[in-house]
């Protein structure tokens, strides 16, 4: 175990290699360029492959090929590039191929800007591409989680044969923090279902998302939905900090959760009972836990760097059992600790929380 100081993007890249990823396909876009640049240097050292694709579309399809061939394969991009990958992500989900896709999100819509943003939440958690499918979506909140969650992402992608997304942003990717790196793993590309050449098998392996007969397609979808139900039952991750005695619980993930944590620390010093609830899996969403907290009479404030996306899932989870307030920063800037502090303090004064 080594402790090193790394940028989030580079920590994630090294974490992927330590988790046995030997295939990276990507395309340049800010603010994720540290990932492909790190991979271009590092992959040759571990006998891996770094390939700069001609487009985001090709990169995701190279991942589909490499993941289908049994390897741990990674691509990364930022918001506009992730939009281009959606076709491929839908095919990968339909064909049940494991892979990991990283979105170092920036502001939109359209070309948007390079600032950090959380406005890709809907795209990440509600589908993004065509068809009824789900990604497991992890939202790292620290440099260490960049390393830890990329390893977990590869394990879960293989366990469920499903694409997994890491939803990071420009701050999480660019900020330097100390991280502890795990030991190096080597994972052979020899999955029983993979396209490896059929040596040793009597029947060919086929990776496919076509169900041209209606009943066949329905069967595929029933199987997918059963898998998503298992994921919802087994894979929810969250952090609940000081929620037990709290009157008001602030829900936030990633970069905004860091700002919220600092604001809550100030309020706690003043004796205010405020807690932080941080979803680590954005899908499956920790709705059960939030519902239980709502049943206990807790009030909620959702803070995110968007016009209000995460807040919809919180409202659905709470389901009218409690009040849900919203504080959003539109793409271009990030909330300051002072702004969030004032928002919470004002809600407490208004009795938004008792």
């Amino acid at each position, binding site marked *: 175990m080594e402790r090193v100081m790394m940028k989030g993007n580079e920590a994630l890249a090294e974490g992927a290699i330590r988790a046995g990823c030997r295939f990276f396909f990507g395309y340049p876009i800010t603010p994720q360029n540290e990932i492909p640049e790190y991979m271009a240097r590092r992959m040759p050292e571990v006998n891996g*492959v770094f390939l700069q694709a001609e487009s985001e*579309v*090709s990169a995701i*399809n190279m991942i589909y*090929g490499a993941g289908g061939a*049994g390897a741990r394969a990674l691509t990364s991009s930022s918001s506009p590039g992730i939009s281009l990958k959606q076709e491929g992500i839908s095919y990968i989900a339909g064909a049940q191929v494991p892979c990991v896709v990283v979105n170092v999100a920036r502001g939109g819509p359209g070309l948007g800007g390079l600032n950090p943003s959380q406005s890709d939440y809907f795209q990440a958690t509600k589908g993004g591409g065509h068809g009824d499918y789900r990604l497991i979506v992890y939202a790292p909140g620290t440099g260490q989680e960049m390393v830890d969650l990329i390893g977990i992402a590869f394990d879960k992608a293989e366990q469920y044969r499903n694409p997994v997304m890491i939803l990071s942003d420009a701050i999480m990717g660019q900020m330097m923090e100390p991280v502890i790196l795990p030991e190096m793993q080597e994972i052979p590309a020899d999955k029983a279902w993979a*396209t*490896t050449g059929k040596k040793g098998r009597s029947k060919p392996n086929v990776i496919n998302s076509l169900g041209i007969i209606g009943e066949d397609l329905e069967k595929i979808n029933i199987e997918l939905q059963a898998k998503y139900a298992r994921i919802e039952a087994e894979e929810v991750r969250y952090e609940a900090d000081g929620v037990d005695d709290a009157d008001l619980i602030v829900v936030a993930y990633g970069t905004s959760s860091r700002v919220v944590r600092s604001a809550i620390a100030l309020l706690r010093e003043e004796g205010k009972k405020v807690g932080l609830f941080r979803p680590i899996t954005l899908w499956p969403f920790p709705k059960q836990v939030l519902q239980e907290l709502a049943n206990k009479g807790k009030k909620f404030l959702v803070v995110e760097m968007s016009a209000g996306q995460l807040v919809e899932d919180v409202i659905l989870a709470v389901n009218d059992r409690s009040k849900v307030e919203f504080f959003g920063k539109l793409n271009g800037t990030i909330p300051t600790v002072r702004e969030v502090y004032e928002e919470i303090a004002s809600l407490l004064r208004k009795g938004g929380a008792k």
Partner: protein
Amino acid sequence: MKKVFGYPHALSEKRTHYCPGCTHGIIHRLVAEAIDELGVEEKTIGVAPVGCAVLAYEYFNVDFQEAAHGRAPAVATGIKRVHPGAVVFAYQGDGDLASIGAAEIIHAAARGEKIAVIFVNNAVYGMTGGQMAPTTLPGQKTTTSPYGRDTATVGYPIRVCELLATLDGPSYLARVSVHDPQHIIKAGQAIRKAFEMQISGQGFALVEVLSSCPTNWGMTPVNALQWVKDKMIPYYPLGVFRSPEEVTSHDA
């Protein structure tokens, strides 16, 4: 008695969905024969397109991945990079390869990606019902060029082999036809050569096969084959546009 003709082992015995008179069946057989002759069935991985050959994975007795429309060369790239010892081929039609997948094929060729591409050019979108393709001939009537392809408004067909031959990456580029037995034999030799490229560790190989589509051309199978000979070959001349020998001299 010596067996001189039989069903290729690499071809599954499943009945195909191809229309009567379509030459996909012949081309499938040629691919399967190449796999048999080279003894690589256990290490061959195919990539199927979106288009008439979308179900190709049911017709070959090898591992397969089904790609999104036009993306087969990218998918094949991912597979080949994971299994460099495998024989990886993509099987694509003209809309798939020369229109929506133009970027993928050009860059796979430019990289000299060590894959084989079987490019079936029948001058029309077959699976979707006969729309104009990037290879539809000037004046040719299709459902989306009902008055004939007007080059003044929609431009000209793409000659893929000639286009790719401007790149340094490819090792083997050939255009063949399957309109008569003599040409079928030559097409088989070209397909086999494309597969041999990978066994010898050389780069990108593409064989363009001029193919008939009696259903969407509105012709009898016999007339459709005649149309390949009379109309397609003059626009798409047969031949080798890049050979390994040439590549070797290039490097020297």
